[in-house]
């Protein structure tokens, strides 16, 4: 028996050598990535858009990282860490021998310098932008990170003013990539054009409005990237971008229009990759507008919309119907909840019960821009309008440009509206509290009951208790039905079939240093 095992093992070893031999062709080549817009800036702390993060993630590393394809945290620039009993002091051991692209060493000083620059408004290099994501994740400036201390060359310590359960998950976010202090000092306000990190790629050229060209970092602390060069090209129109993919001038693209999914699936030279879902697209009803203060009306709407039909038509089937405000990929998801099924008759009954058997008229705000969770807002808005007309309700479609739309929904001016959310860090708090707590909701949903549960969950460090609390929160939300949760989408990415080992991350962007091109 043992002999056989040994033989198997030898065969495996031989095979793996053989496979690695074949894999030798992996090295080299240029990957052209087509996307919807240009990068705004290459200083990750100053930008907020996916098109910038897509590139900065290749140039920079963070202290900790998400394991590819998940939101689990794994070591990156920090090799290991520990947290004090009270949850307020975090100590990180840093990786040895890492260098920035400009040759300067990565060490505890550099980490401290970066965090100080981000959090201290009187820091001489707190310039070049608004440090938006720092303020957002750590609650302002200096926020909850009270001190950053250099313990020794490779040990750094963070002292927090209050507990933050998802602290580690936050540190793994792309905006918190560590920059070379020397480079920031040298370029000042123009640092965003001259990025220097420790990442697998360095910036070769950035033609604004057109393309960003990256070259492999020969000195990378992980294995050198397989690709020699990555070109990110901006082609705003989804269909134009898809034509470029078909004609072979780009190797992969995101923002595939649902209309083109079929063409990808049927083409031999193309394939589809699905980003794991960490989002929700929803239709919210504002409690300040009659009759949406009546739970029967809100439940009626929940019964009136056929989510599966919408998914088949406008997502090319690449989404799942939502019953909770957070996606099943996140821990704490309550799968016991019985969704409001599609049932127009029941919806009509509920409306009649609420005294609206003759229907009513209201404004339905539809998304003016494609978002990953709702790629075709205009179509879906019209579909919802049709479904609602079936139960005798008249919806007038309304929209504004994106900035105004956000501004007005924020100020609770929309009677009903479509919106959505893509998770930042894989924590339920990042969905439930951010979207539905009484301090945050945009539709005047102000449940005291929910608030208590969510706040308690924020202050609890024990995982199991948190799970229970979030389960309970989802039940409350289901009962109150402030939204019609529509879908959790899995945004498709189209690739040429020779692009190998691309692993999309639920967070929306990922490192590309393990991607290679087959012959």
């Amino acid at each position, binding site marked *: 028996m043992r002999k056989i095992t040994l033989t198997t093992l030898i065969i495996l070893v031989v095979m793996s050598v053989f496979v690695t031999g074949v894999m030798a062709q992996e090295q080299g080549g240029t990957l052209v990535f087509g996307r919807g817009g240009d990068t705004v800036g290459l200083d990750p702390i100053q930008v907020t858009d996916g098109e910038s993060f897509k590139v900065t993630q290749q140039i920079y590393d963070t202290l900790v990282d998400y394991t590819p394809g998940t939101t689990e945290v794994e070591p990156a620039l920090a090799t290991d860490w520990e947290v004090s009993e009270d949850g307020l002091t975090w100590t990180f051991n840093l990786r040895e021998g890492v260098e920035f692209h400009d040759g300067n060493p990565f060490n505890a000083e550099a980490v401290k310098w970066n965090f100080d620059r981000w959090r201290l408004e009187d820091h001489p290099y707190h310039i070049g932008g608004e440090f938006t994501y720092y303020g957002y994740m750590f609650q302002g400036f200096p926020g909850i990170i009270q001190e950053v201390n250099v313990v020794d060359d490779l040990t750094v310590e963070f002292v927090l003013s209050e507990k933050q359960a998802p602290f580690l998950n936050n540190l793994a976010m792309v905006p918190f990539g560590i920059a070379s202090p020397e480079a920031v000092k040298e370029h000042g306000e123009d640092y965003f054009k001259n990025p220097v990190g420790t990442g697998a790629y360095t910036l070769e050229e950035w033609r604004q409005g057109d393309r960003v060209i990256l070259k492999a970092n020969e000195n990378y602390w992980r294995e050198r990237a397989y690709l020699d060069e990555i070109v990110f090209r901006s082609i705003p129109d989804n*269909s134009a971008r898809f034509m470029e993919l078909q004609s072979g001038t780009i190797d992969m693209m995101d923002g595939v229009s649902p209309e083109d999914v079929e063409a990808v699936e049927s083409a031999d030279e193309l394939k589809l990759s699905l980003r794991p879902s960490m989002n929700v697209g929803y239709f919210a009803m504002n409690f300040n507008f009659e009759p949406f203060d009546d739970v029967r009306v809100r439940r009626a709407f929940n019964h009136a919309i056929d989510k599966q*039909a*919408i998914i088949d038509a406008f997502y090319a089937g690449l989404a799942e119907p939502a019953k909770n405000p957070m996606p099943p990929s996140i821990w704490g998801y309550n799968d016991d909840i019985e969704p409001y099924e599609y049932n127009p008759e029941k919806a009509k009954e509920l409306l009649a019960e609420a005294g609206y058997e003759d229907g009513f008229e209201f404004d339905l705000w539809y998304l003016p821009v494609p978002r990953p969770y709702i790629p075709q807002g205009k179509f879906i808005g019209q579909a919802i309008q049709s479904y609602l007309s079936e139960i005798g309700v008249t919806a007038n479609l309304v929209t504004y440009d994106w900035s105004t739309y956000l501004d007005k929904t924020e100020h609770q001016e929309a009677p009903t509206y479509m919106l959505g959310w893509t998770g930042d860090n894989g924590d339920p708090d990042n969905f439930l509290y951010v979207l539905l707590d009484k301090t945050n909701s945009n539709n005047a949903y102000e449940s005291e009951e929910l608030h208590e549960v969510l706040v308690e969950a924020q202050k609890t460090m024990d995982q199991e208790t948190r799970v229970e609390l979030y389960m309970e929160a989802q039940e409350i939300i289901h009962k109150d039905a402030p939204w019609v949760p529509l879908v959790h989408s899995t945004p498709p990415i189209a690739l040429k079939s020779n692009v190998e080992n691309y692993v999309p991350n639920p967070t929306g962007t990922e490192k590309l240093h393990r991607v290679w091109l087959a012959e």
Partner: protein
Amino acid sequence: MAGSNENRVMKKNTNPWLEAWRRLLQSKIGIAGLVIIIFLILVALLAPVLAPYDPIKTNIIARYKAPSSEHLLGTDGLGRDILSRIIYGSRISLQVGLFSVALALLFGVGFGLLAGYYGGKLDMVIMRFMDIMLAFPSILLAIGIVAILGPQLKNAMIAIGIINVPRFARIVRSSVLSIKESEYISAARALGAGDLRIIFKHLLPNAMAPLIVQTTLSIATAILEAAALSFLGLGAQPPSPEWGAMLSDARSSLQKAPWVATFPGLAIIFGVLGFNLLGDGLRDALDPKMKNV
């Protein structure tokens, strides 16, 4: 040529408008334009009779059906019959053209009269302001205005009206200037005619010919501009079958369903062509000096 000139001299005493109408009916392009516009108006009026389907009701299992005997021009991304939508869309395009140009006309003529008639500082202020407006790329100005007011067809019409004001103001002003000092205006004034009377009895009629031509041609551009705004999502809102808005939905399906993009575009060309032809015909008919065909 010479013959028609003599003709004009002989009929000097007949009503000039009747004469212009007669000349319009003699011009091939003018008639072509008239026919197209009358056709459009009929389609718009008879839309409920003509359209084979409901232009609004969606049917998401019949998305992107190619043209067939069932749907002559195919169906769109929500399974609606494109022919029916184009038929109903004619109502919107005519409305947009007329309303926004009426707005431009009202303010343009007002500003032009004020500037031309009173002259001096008022003239300078008004015309400088018109110059400033003309210095803007008009589509950007329109986008800015719609962004302030909110994207609705009504607001798109207002924006288009605004960007067309300077053109009318200039025409009226120069026409007023050309006869303001003439003897017969002085005579009218000497006879005790007030400003209003002079303006409406003498100055405005004199500007009528170029105004009519410009109005017709502006309707054509207004329809185009509205289509552009709707295409950008700033004009007509769904499910309205406005022609430009129909095109904006068509972009993502260009490969899969090119008919969605093709036919509303042809409808726009047809409608705009009608007003352009009529405008050309009118120019020839009303302004013998510019007559060159």
